[in-house]
């Protein structure tokens, strides 16, 4: 069902956890549809210095969460905003078609976290 790369990220997910007093937190999904993803960011000079996630969801949900954290570490916020759900799925070498819609939300969670950071900073 899942390719080796997805299974690798699923069984050894990178950057699991929370960041206390994170600069930005983003959450998407709801338990009704089966996915909840929460992403925590640490930001310095518009660069993402640390990122962690917590996810309730299927193999694809966990793998995409893990993948997106790897993709954004060290990137600028602008660069991070260009990452799409599609790009995450591609970085994983593809997902089963049935999983493309409901589990492929990690980039959305990332964007929410960035928005949260910008909103907090603006205050």
């Amino acid at each position: 069902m899942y390719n080796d790369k997805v299974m690798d990220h699923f069984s050894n997910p990178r950057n699991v956890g929370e960041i206390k007093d994170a600069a930005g937190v983003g959450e998407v999904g709801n338990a009704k549809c089966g996915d909840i993803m929460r992403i925590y960011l640490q930001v310095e000079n518009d660069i993402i210095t640390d990122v962690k996630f917590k996810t309730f969801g299927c193999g694809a949900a966990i793998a995409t969460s893990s993948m997106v954290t790897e993709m954004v570490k060290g990137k600028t916020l602008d660069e991070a905003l260009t990452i799409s759900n599609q790009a995450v799925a591609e970085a994983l070498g593809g997902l089963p078609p049935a999983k493309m819609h409901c589990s492929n939300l990690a980039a959305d969670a990332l964007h929410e976290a960035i928005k949260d950071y910008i909103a907090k900073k603006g205050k």
Partner: protein
Amino acid sequence: MKRIYFDHSATTPVDREVAELMLEYMTDKFGNASSVHAFGREARKAMEDAREKVAALINAEPREIFFTSGGTEGDNLAIKGVAYANRKKGNHIITTGIEHHAIFHTCEYLEKQGFTVTYLPVDENAMISLEDLKNAITDKTILISVMFANNEVGTIQPIKEIGQLAREKGIYFHTDAVQVAGNYPIDVKELNIDMLTLSGHKFYASKGVGALYIRRGVRVEEIQHGGGHERNMRAGTENVPGIVGLGKAAEIAKQDMDKKVAYVTGLRDKLIAGVMEKIPHVKLNGHPEMRMPGNANFSFLFIEGESLLLNLDMKGIAASSGSACTSGSLDPSHVLLAMGLSHEVAHGSLRVTLGKGNTEADVNYFLDVVPEIVERLRSMSPLYGS
């Protein structure tokens, strides 16, 4: 790696004895049961022997057994067959909200054809109420179809009482016994059952073969047209090897059934007790007593079923889940939702179904590996500990 199969409600391995008999009827005694020559007569005789054995399994008469391609076809034939044949008497069907899709989608299809269907609710243990059933009956009701035991949570319905009520009211009673036949005693006469669906691959016969029991006198219209096989009830060259295997499996199932039921129940109870003891925040789904011997169904709060399954799989354990994500559909199991579980809790469900080939060592291994998997997934969950 150890491979442990805990998904007997999805399908069972074919008994070696059954498979070898099938092989013989494929390569050697391969005749078409409709042929008049020796090859054909040999095939027909074996098929009629099998019919006797399947009948004996549920205490029916051989002529009341009609072979099908499996449980789904049996359910389609029962529901559509009665609906079409009795349209003049009425257009109302009563079933439940927890049926298998083979019943559920067939009923939905009939609704588009002008039939009215009542879907009975169930309580938190997946039980229907006889009171609800009584109240649902109208003078247009031609069929009551209530599954014998549920495939997800294992709850066994009050079949005898339903049968009695249906008999009194002169309404046909069908039961989907796909999970039950061969795994738990059934007596269609004692239980007042008019029609019963069974499927080979749920009790150690092959996929692709099953049977529908139709009590003598029940009016059913065929749904697959062609040569007049199965006394015009089911056209299509009979799957002789499959049928012979079904007969053998029925014979084996009948031998020492009580012993096997007790054995599987014992293992299952040990597994349930172990899980409840070792893991916090777990809910057992389904009826505490009235449940199929092999069935255990848990909701592990705060985690999602597919990730749990994949982790178990990596440890060599095969199980299943009612999570939406497993099935690729948007909603989790309609059964768990009908029982009143919230979406989150339904998503975290795990079905473990044991069979006669499982051992105590299998259960112990499961109890060894599951707690740490659950703990790890919970530590990743945004719902846990926050």
